[in-house]
């Protein structure tokens, strides 16, 4: 190793970053080189002299002057909370809008609603939907906001939302009967319906 290679290692050593392998090489070079030994000693002395500079005295009232120079404390207005929590604010607004639209959809359907692929045989009296005895409905039937009275055959599923279903002894339903009353299960039902429609589009 020559002095030119040793110099950066001296600096690494002074930084406290000298690795073992290089330290050994440096040590060997220093054993043989008075010039680099002197240089190292000078560096170390410079460091010691710098660090011997005593801490300057801080004025006693510095801290209180700082506190006095601060602007007066003010109550943070609500909009700065919004600015600091943008994600939550957006989520809250989103949920409020969704809740409002669900509420309006839920309210809308006070009227009787009947859905199905095959409604030929179905009879409606007031707010009761009737599948008469001896008649057959092929496919699913959905009734909302009313009563469903089954006296005949249904070759499919029955869904009643916000209503009731009555089945006579002559009734025969080949699928499932579902009644939905709570808003949550209505939401779930709607989601399932959406997926059902999506898969039908394929």
């Amino acid at each position, binding site marked *: 190793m020559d002095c030119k290679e040793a110099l950066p290692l001296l600096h690494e050593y*002074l930084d406290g970053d000298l690795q073992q392998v290089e330290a050994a090489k440096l040590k060997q070079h220093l054993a043989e080189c008075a010039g680099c030994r002197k240089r190292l000693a000078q560096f170390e002395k410079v*460091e010691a002299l*710098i660090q011997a500079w005593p801490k300057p005295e*801080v004025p006693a009232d510095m801290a209180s*002057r*700082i*506190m006095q*120079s601060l602007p007066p404390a003010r109550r943070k207005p609500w909009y700065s909370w919004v600015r600091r929590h943008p994600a939550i604010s957006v989520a809250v607004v989103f949920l409020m809008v969704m809740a409002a639209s669900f509420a309006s959809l839920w309210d809308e359907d006070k009227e009787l609603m009947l859905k199905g692929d095959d409604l030929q045989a179905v009879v409606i009296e007031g707010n009761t939907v009737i599948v008469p005895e001896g008649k057959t409905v092929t496919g699913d039937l959905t009734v909302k906001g009313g009563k469903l009275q089954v006296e005949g055959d249904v070759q499919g599923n029955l869904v009643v939302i916000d209503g009731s279903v009555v089945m006579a002894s002559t009734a025969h339903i080949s699928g499932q009967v579902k009644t939905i009353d709570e808003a949550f299960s209505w939401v779930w039902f709607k989601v399932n319906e959406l997926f059902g429609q999506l898969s039908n589009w394929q």
Partner: protein
Amino acid sequence: MNSIAIDTRLARLAKSGDRAAFAELVELYNDKIYHLAYRMLRNRHEAEEIVQETFLRVYMNLDKYDEQQKFSTWIYRIGTNLCIDRLRKRKPNYSLDAEMSDGDGNDWYSTLPSEEDTPAEQLVLSETQQQIRATIDTLPDKYKAVVILRYLQDLSLQEISEALSMPVTTIKTRLHRGREFLRKKLEQIL
């Protein structure tokens, strides 16, 4: 793990309006920032201004303090940058900014005598101490900040690199050049 540093916790409280927490932060750091500023600027009045400005900026920007970073790094960054800006403002003359031909990055301004160390102080200080301070004063600004932060404020190279927003390799280069500059200037008395 509940090992959040005390100053980070105080900063969090101060952010939500707790003045007493902020006063605690002032107690913790005002000496250090004063020492930094005085050693950089060698002028008591300016050092006091820097300290006040530093804490004012901390106060106004608590919202922007990133708790992942050490509070000390953040406040040292603000303080050091204010000092460097102030040093730059002292050089109105373009010709004084011109580099000298000694290749060390010196400019003529740094050859002007230091403001501080009153005659009374100079009597008390050893000649060596006087020379060391005067020589640090002549360090080019780039090296001065690193040398002072490292040797006098006891920051690690990593902390200095974060405070000055520069890679550690750059910090090392400046530190090594600063060391060599001082060694050469003080060779006679070492």
